[in-house]
């Protein structure tokens, strides 16, 4: 049942993008998302597309793997596109059935929104494809560090995330084992209506829950025995280092995203003729 869950979607490869500092990748992603949402023209979108395509090429992750991430939001894409198609008002009426009016502006807006969502997903997928969950957690912890000033328990949060990551493969193994064992006793998880299927999960969930509690208890003991206290005097071995590689990537990335934003703002002045079809008001 869970055989196809390869944990996270990290794509193992040794590329420039894989070796970047996770903090930089997180910041670039945030900047990229801001640029995407600031974009009001197709020019701005095109600039973002250029950025994400360049990043995919550098990361050496096959385009297919990156595009697969869009599959997950396919329903959302179609739904929002249809909603905008039907509800967006405008001046150039294209078609009319009863109360449904479709305007040219609606079509353009729907397409624009679709691309914005697709690029959003592609960008985030690229981050998780090139960064292990562990280094992502480290990056997040490091970025959140300033919050310790307002007594936010950054370290405890990071430890929780790290332990969760550590136990996901263990619990997936365990789940598979329990599923197999109950299947061997004739359990059927694949047929019947929704109610029956939910009920069929009980023989899996209860042993899993019990084992999770048992593991938690043992882990707690092991941590205690290894002198764990939530004291501020704790040190941290892992230190993320910013290398020349990150410097280059930061400059290039920032330049591309800034270009996207600027291009977006001044595009109408560069190509006035294309107005009104490229600008989304």
């Amino acid at each position: 049942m869970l055989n196809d869950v390869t944990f996270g979607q990290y794509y193992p490869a040794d590329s420039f993008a894989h070796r970047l500092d996770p903090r930089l990748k997180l910041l670039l992603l945030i900047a990229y998302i801001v640029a995407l949402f600031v974009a009001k023209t197709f020019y701005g979108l095109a600039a973002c597309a250029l950025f994400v395509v360049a990043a995919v090429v550098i990361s050496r992750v096959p385009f297919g793997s990156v595009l697969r991430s869009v599959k997950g939001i396919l329903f959302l894409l179609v739904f929002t596109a249809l909603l905008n198609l039907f509800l967006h008002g405008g001046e150039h009426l294209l078609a009319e059935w009863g109360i449904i009016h479709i305007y040219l502006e609606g079509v353009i807006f729907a397409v624009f929104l679709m691309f914005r969502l697709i690029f959003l997903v592609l960008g985030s997928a690229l981050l998780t494809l090139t960064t292990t969950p562990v280094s992502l957690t480290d990056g997040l912890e490091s970025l959140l560090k300033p919050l310790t000033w307002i007594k936010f328990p950054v370290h405890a949060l990071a430890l929780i995330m790290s332990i969760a990551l550590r136990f996901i493969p263990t619990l997936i193994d365990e789940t598979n084992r329990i599923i197999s064992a109950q299947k061997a006793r004739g359990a059927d998880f694949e047929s019947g209506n929704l109610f029956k299927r939910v009920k069929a999960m009980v023989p899996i969930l209860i042993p899993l829950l019990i084992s999770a509690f048992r593991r938690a208890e043992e882990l707690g003991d092991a941590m205690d025995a290894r002198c764990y206290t939530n004291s501020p005097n704790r040190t941290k071995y892992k230190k993320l280092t910013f290398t020349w590689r990150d410097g280059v990537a930061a400059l290039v990335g920032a330049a591309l995203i800034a270009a996207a934003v600027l291009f977006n703002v001044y595009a109408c002045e560069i190509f006035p003729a294309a107005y009104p079809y490229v600008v989304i008001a």
Partner: protein
Amino acid sequence: MSQDLRQEGSPLPEGAPALSFSNVKFYYPESQAPAVNGVSFEVRRGEFVSVIGHNGSGKSTLARLICGLLQADEGKIRVWGIDLSDADGVKEARRHTGIVFQNPDNQMVASIVEDDVAFGPENLGVEREEIGRRIEASLAAVGMSDYRHATPSRLSGGQKQRIAVAGVLAIRPDILILDESTAMLDPRGRREVIEVVGRLNREEGITVLLITHFMEEALLADRTIVMNRGEIVMQGTPEDIFHSGESLVTYNLCLPEITSMADALRERGVDTRPCLRPEELAADIAAHAAKTGRQCAVSPRISPDKGPKHGAWDIDIKDLTFTYSAKSPFASKALRGVDLHIGEGEFFGVIGHTGSGKSTLIQHLNALIKLPQANKKYRPPKLKKGQTPPVMPELRVGPYDLADKKCNFLQLRSDVGMVFQYPEYQLFAETVAEDVAFGLKNFNKDLSPEEVEERVRAAISAVGLDPDEVCDKSPFDLSGGQKRRVAIAGVIVSRPKILVLDEPAAGLDPLGKKEIMELLHALHSEWCRTVVIVSHDMDEIACNCTRACVVSDGRIAMCARPHELFARTEELRSLGLDVPLTAKVCEELKKYGMDIDCDYTPQGLVAAVSAALGGERDA
């Protein structure tokens, strides 16, 4: 390296014991009887002490008391001279102790080895550079330096447990406690861990307290403590303890197999002393042979294998291959072409390391893993002219053809019962009776409640439990051994023709192991025609199985009766496997020029040796 592992903290006063208990009592909140009852003992600095005792004898409680995970109700505990009765003492004492628990998975906090090892020193506020040095030294001490950046979940049990030891060493403890740390490992993993612990004791002078069920491990210690019902009942050198014979049995411990063999031989007039190692027994037998002028004694031959049996419920496997996560970057081949025949009526053994593919193999037997062509979506590939069709695996179990999409897989699963490793972790229902009935109701949807009850009670009696006593209890209120029996009852309740068990005795104490194997033999003769067990324990295979196969690297490396299989000791060792104790004795005897042919059960060896020496022949 030696310096890097030493403690720079408070020194132990000269002559003070590393660890001392005086009249310690401890009660678990929910029970009347004390788990530890007036225990007093001392452990010298640098000493290696092993603690043995049956399940529930209080030895794990002892370990938890030392680490301050539990607080003694009475008496005084001192660890490295520090009194554990107040919280500050516990905190200080924890810097001097390190404990490794049973389950390697449940002691790791990080997904990368070096981060996990760093956890302890981080907690103590050690500086970064120093943590780096400690990681290096600790990993080197357990021989895992190459795995510094690896992910623990992809390591073997033995490797994981060595990482756990390294994580503890990074705190620089003076006392290392192992609480049945090898119970869940295969023989190779067990050897790895024990070697590391022995070396740490000898070379680094770390005091070791080893809690174990395995006699071979207890033997390595300077001193052995025997616990029974929360009390220390015996103390002394391991040799003295294991030579004490019958009194061990009164404490619910098993006599070492080798001691029993020496005793049996002595009864037959062979002059053997009580001993604990195969070399010693072989030397005594050889000395006796020399005295009686039979230096090159040869035992009678056992008739050669007549080949496997055949019947209506045979298992036939041909060309079986299987790949996990095929078509992904993580694809791994588990089976690379397995051909195997298991005849009806056999007690068949499957031997192999963790990761050898044996679990994948047995999961094919009841179609938990289906053959590719039996999947609903499977379409045979279109062949171009002149192409030969690919060889498809074949698998037949009795009347079922598992390659057929139309095979009744539900019926198959009721005829091929499968008991997984640690089956007690799959119990879920509110009462034992409900849990046992789960499979039965799934397979026979129209059984009347009376019939269900009757069959459930029969299954519970068959596994040696009293239905009147346990039926209405929650399965979670039973003891570990009882839970396992209930789980087995939940599988045999459908009266399978073939019963497959993945390491049925794993994690039990020696007595529990013996009882489970006796149970399986009883089931074999009364309930099921064929029993297949997966096991790491060669003695278990030698004593119980009619035939056994060795799975290595996704292939069947050997398949024969124990008496032929274990004669090939070199081959087994080259696959990284152990050999039974009896085979070790035969191997040693060969060095003295004695050629003993036996079925490698202890009784068989005794009979063959006494026959070779011209003593009484066993009837």
